[in-house]
Structure formats: C-alpha cells, structure tokens
C-alpha cells in the first residue's frame, strides 16, 4: 500500500521530476522556470538537508506533510489555523498564482482566470485545454442562465470550439441553446440558483485535472489515515470487532480476545436432547428444536440476554431441524421422518402442516422469496411446495432416507442437496446445470455461508472441509480437532465477515477455527453432553449459541477478564509491529 508518493495520477501527468514544488515563498513572482528549482533541489543546502525529511523511516517529505495538514485544516473549516500554519511554517498550500486563480474562478472572472491559468506551473497543454474548456463551459451556462444567448453563441464559436477538444460535448452545448429541456438536463448543476455552489463544484473538477502538487486533492490526509486503518484491519488475523473500535491512538489488533470464549448464559427450556438451533437473520431471535418434540423460540435482548418467548408443540416425533423465513416472520420445523410445520414466529401459532401420506419428511428449506419451500422426503425425493401446501414439483435427488440437508442460495438459483454418499449437488433447475462437490469420505451435513460463497461440509472422518462454490467448486481449507463418530454434528460460519468456523463435537466442546488459516482457535468446554449444533449470531459477532444432548443451550460471549485488561491501555505508536503474523 502506498506512502505519500502513491497519489492517483492526474489526467495528464506532467513530466517534471517528482519533487515537491519547493518552498513557495510568499512574495516571489511565479515566473521562475522549473529547471532552476531542480537545480536547487539537486544540491540541498547543508543546514536544510536534514529538515526536509521527517519521520523515523525517512520517507515523509516535510513540505508535503505540512501542505496536506494545512489542506485538512481548511477542509475542517479552521481558516485561521490553516493560515497560521502557512505563516509559521513558511510553506504555502498554494502558490500565489493558484490562489489568485481560485479566487477568480469563485468570483466568476472567467477571462482573468484563463490568463492566470497559464501562469500556473506544471500544467501541460492538455491540462490547460481541459481546464479552459471547463471554465468556458461554466461561463457558457451562466450566460445562458442570464439569457444572454447571443453572447453564449458567440462564445461557443470563438472560444470553446477552437480549443479543439471534446467535440461531442460542444455539440451538446449547442443543443442547449436551442432546446431548453436539454439545457435543463445538462446545465442545471452549473446554473443552479446558488452560483457559488456551482463554482465550488467547478473548482473541484479543476482540482482533479491538475497535478496533485499544484492543488492538493480534497481530503488527502483523511484518505491516508483510512488507508493505514485498512492495512491494520486487514493485518488483524483474528479481526472480529466493529469499525467503531478502530482508533487512531494505537495500532489495531484484536487478538483472540474478540472471539466468544465464555458461557454467558445457559438456557433451560427443553426436556430432552437439543439437536438443532439457529439464530434468525436479524439476530434478534434464536430457534431450537429437540427430541422432546418441541421447538422453542428465544428472544435476544439488546443487552445480550436471551429469554424464552414461545414453546411450539405439535410435532409427534423429535424435531430435527428448523429454518427461519427470509423475513424472520415465520419458522419451518421438521419432525424426524414426519411432517414439516410452518409457524408464525411472532405469535407462535402453527400456520400449516406439510406432509406426504405414507412417507416422512427429513429436511426443510425456504426459497428466498419466502413463497415456496423445499423438503427432503424418505423416498429420496426432493419436493417443492407453495405455502398453501400444494406440491409444485418433485424429483429424485437424495441418497439418504433419514436426514439430508437442503439449501437454496439467496438468488434462488442453486438448490444444494446431498445427492450421493460422497457428493453434494448444486442444481440450477432453470439452466439444467449441475455442479458437484465430490469428496472421498461420506458427507454427514453441510452449511451454506451468508453470501452463498462457501459451503462447509462435515465428513464422517471428523474433518470439516471448506469449499468455494462461486464458480467451479474448489476445496479450500480443512478443519480438524473435533470428535464425531456416531452423531449428526453441525458446523457453521460466523464472526466479522464470516472469518470463523464453529462446530459442535461429541466430546461436549464447542470448536472454533480461523476460516482462512484453518488453525484451531478455541475448544470451549462447558456442556455435559455432545454438542450437536452451533449457530453464530449474524448481527452480533461476539455471540455464539450451542445445542447439546445435556438438554441445554449455551450462549457464548467475550471473556470479561480479557476485556478489562485491554481497556487499561498500552501504547503502541507503530514502532513495534504488533499484529500476529499469519503463519500460513
């Protein structure tokens, strides 16, 4: 990433040595040729040499540094401070010619500004022409605005056209003379009632044309600071905090302290093993399903506390899965080889029961429009239903007959299902295209990432594989450490930008890995039975929930002790590189 030299090149880069335009002394007339400046710079006076470069790395030129600070002061509205800095440092933000030019543009002295324009250094012919065009264009529109049509036409012919550039625009301008609607379309910004406003805009456009040394780009200092923050955030390996926590006082580094590590709450409500749970899309609710044949909707309060909202009964078999509707207003629940029920998540009322006579349903998923749902059936078919229970379509697609995950991408295009013991199918029904994820071991469950870019595949051999499914499926990372030998154990994505992967485990712990690196970050004990399913709150990156055979749900949050220590502040001004190195 760039240091101070990494400016975006202006439209026409001027061929001068990339040295700052030197000390801009207040009273000097700006007619010195550039070469003499170069001569000065080539042999810096001994006493000034050291002061030209500041900072410990020796890459910051003092003149540039002061000028962008001055610019920032003026942008913030601190006129007096800006002027004082220019005075005290002897380094001027703009040359006197540029200052005069700016004033003339803002006051509308177009012809004078064109003269001054030619006196500004570092501007080649192309820039001069483009700048002149912009100024004359503004003059043109203002003339039209005052109804001085003859003058405008004359100007167009004798001043703008001879510039020989932007012929198409010239045609458009002449069109404005004739058609008032076209004028309204093209020139309204330039002729706006606030002429000062439109002239400010003109100045900004001109600024973009000039080389940055002539007129410092707007918000240059802010841009550099934001760049630095981006670098810090990208380098933060375990980054899992909000942008609001980024501070300019110390280099940012989350460390593993921003990953949920401590049980903040144990939820009791189910009377038997809990096999599935999932946060709603808006993170305000949590739904869990149990072998006690009930589904519970929990509410997540502002302060992070979770409380029971509804207990949904009606299933006659253990409930193996729930699915939140895209708008979080409804919930689907699937009984084991039984029926699928659709509930109103707000009132807790059962709205519909979907069943196939003689058969059982084994999984359920919503279509992103919330108007259709998909179910897996014990006869290895996948069924598509509308909300009223009408079966729209059915096709053979599943290998298993007891449990089989199903998912639909948010664009409604791909239907993802377990088509063979070792393969997952991504089916585009419209285009009749199918992509396959093929594994060497039996696949147990899978989980789709928030933006449909990744699929987390759980295997029978205690490995979790991360696949990219954007184009052709590609295996990216493997995660190991958890235990699975008998049960359906689920994993999920979570954290800031889904940078983490979490999973349940038969050894009663919750496992968390760094998604890109694959390294195990946490193995959290607490549960007294196998952890079957985990869900990371999509809107609170510090909250994770786990469902266990011990009849409880645990809500995990940040370790409070670590948080306290971080607040007591230690200083880092970037001299020591703080971030964890990426060991991959």
């Amino acid at each position: 990433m760039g240091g101070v030299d990494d400016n975006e090149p202006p439209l026409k880069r001027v061929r001068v040595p990339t040295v700052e335009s030197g000390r801009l002394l207040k009273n000097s007339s700006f007619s010195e040729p550039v070469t003499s400046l170069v001569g000065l710079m080539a042999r810096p006076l001994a006493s000034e040499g050291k002061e030209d470069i500041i900072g410990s790395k020796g890459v910051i030129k003092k003149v540039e540094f002061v000028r962008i600070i001055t610019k920032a002061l003026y942008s913030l509205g601190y006129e007096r401070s800006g002027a004082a800095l220019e005075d005290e440092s002897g380094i001027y933000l703009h040359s006197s010619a540029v200052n005069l030019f700016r004033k003339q543009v803002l006051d509308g002295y177009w012809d004078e500004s064109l003269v001054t324009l030619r006196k500004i250094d570092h501007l080649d012919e192309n820039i001069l022409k483009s700048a002149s065009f912009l100024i004359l264009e503004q003059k043109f529109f203002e003339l039209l605005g005052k109804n001085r049509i003859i003058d405008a036409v004359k100007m167009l012919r004798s001043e703008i056209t001879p510039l020989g550039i932007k012929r198409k625009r010239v045609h458009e301008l002449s069109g404005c003379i004739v058609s008032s609607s076209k004028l309204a379309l093209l020139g309204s910004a330039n002729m706006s009632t606030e002429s000062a406003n439109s002239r400010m805009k003109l100045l900004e456009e001109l600024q973009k044309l000039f080389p940055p040394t002539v007129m410092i780009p707007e918000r240059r200092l802010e841009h550099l600071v934001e760049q630095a923050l981006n670098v810090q955030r990208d380098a933060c390996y375990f980054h899992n905090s909000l942008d609001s926590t980024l501070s300019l006082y110390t280099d940012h580094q989350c460390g593993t302290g921003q990953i949920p590590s401590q049980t903040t709450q144990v939820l009791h409500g189910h009377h038997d093993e809990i096999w599935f749970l999932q946060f709603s899309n808006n993170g305000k609710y949590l739904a869990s399903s149990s072998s006690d044949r009930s589904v519970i909707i929990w509410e997540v309060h502002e302060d992070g506390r979770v409380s029971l909202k509804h207990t949904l009964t009606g299933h006659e078999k253990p409930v193996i899965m729930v699915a939140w509707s895209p708008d979080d207003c409804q919930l689907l629940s699937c009984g084991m080889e039984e029926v699928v029920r659709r509930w109103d998540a707000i009132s807790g009322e059962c709205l519909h029961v979907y069943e196939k006579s003689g058969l059982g349903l084994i999984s359920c998923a919503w279509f992103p429009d919330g108007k259709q749902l998909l179910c897996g059936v014990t006869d290895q078919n996948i069924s598509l239903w509308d909300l009223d229970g009408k079966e729209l379509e059915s096709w053979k697609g599943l290998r298993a007959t007891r449990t089989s995950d199903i998912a639909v991408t948010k664009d409604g295009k791909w239907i993802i299902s377990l088509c063979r013991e070792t393969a997952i199918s991504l089916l585009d029904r419209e285009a009749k295209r199918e992509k396959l994820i093929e594994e060497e071991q039996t696949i147990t469950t899978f989980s789709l990432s928030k933006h449909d870019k990744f699929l987390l595949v759980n295997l029978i051999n205690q490995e979790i594989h991360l696949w990219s499914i954007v184009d052709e499926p590609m295996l990216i990372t493997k995660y190991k450490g958890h235990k699975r030998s008998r049960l359906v154990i689920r994993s999920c994505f979570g954290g800031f930008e889904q940078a983490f992967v979490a999973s349940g485990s038969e050894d009663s712990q919750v496992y968390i890995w760094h998604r890109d690196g694959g390294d195990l970050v946490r193995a959290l004990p607490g549960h007294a039975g196998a952890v079957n399913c985990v869900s990371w709150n999509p809107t609170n990156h510090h909250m994770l929930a786990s469902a266990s055979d011990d009849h409880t749900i645990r809500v995990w949050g940040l370790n409070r002790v670590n948080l306290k220590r971080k607040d007591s502040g230690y200083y880092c001004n970037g001299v020591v590189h703080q971030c964890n190195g990426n060991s991959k």
Partner: protein
Amino acid sequence: MGLPFLIHLEGKIYSCKHCQTHLGISDDIMSRSFHCRHGKAYLFSKIVNVTVGLKEERMMMTGLHTVSDIFCVGCGSIVGWKYEAAHEKSQKYKEGKFILERFKVSGPDGSHYWVSHDPHVGGSDADDA
C-alpha cells in the same frame, strides 16, 4: 444419545436386529464360514453405521488377533468385531475387515437367525484358506 448419522445402503441389506439400522450388503460378504459364541458369523469387507471400540488381543481359533468390538450406531448394541491386526501371516487377509454375528442382524429377507447349540459354540473365528 443424540441424533445418529445413518448411511443408507441399497441392495441386499443386513441390518441391526434391534433398530434396523443398515450395516452391510450381501455383495461385501467375503466369507460365510466364520463362527462366534452365538453361532454363525460373516466376514464383510465393508460395514457402515458402526462405532469401533477399544483394541484388544484375543486368542481365536486361528491364532492371536488384535480386534475391536463394533457397535450399532443406532442403538449401541454390539454386532460383531473388526480385525485390526493378525499375528500370523496366513491370517493377514482379515486385517481391516469386519465380522457381523448372524445372531445380531436381520438378513436381506428380514430373516433372523436363532442360536443353535452345536459343537462350535466354544470358539470364535475360523475360515481359513
């Protein structure tokens, strides 16, 4: 107990007598000439839906072997054992293979096998090149 993950088999299936969990298919049977305490046993090259217990040394009819008991994932009942290692060269072919006790499984036609008290009751193992 949790929600067990069960693989679904197709073909002529041998399943757990108690919970009907699929265990193996007839095509994967390597030999029907094995014996266990409860009578007949079959040697399978591949078995699904079982968990494997701890390894132990057992003296079998054909010599010392390292075996692990295998348990049905659905109900936990013991259904046979897995040969982890054979100490005699001639028995090496059994390594990595599984024994299902006929008494513990339902056959492809749903048939069960009743324990018969015959002379082989005393020993486990057999087959032999």
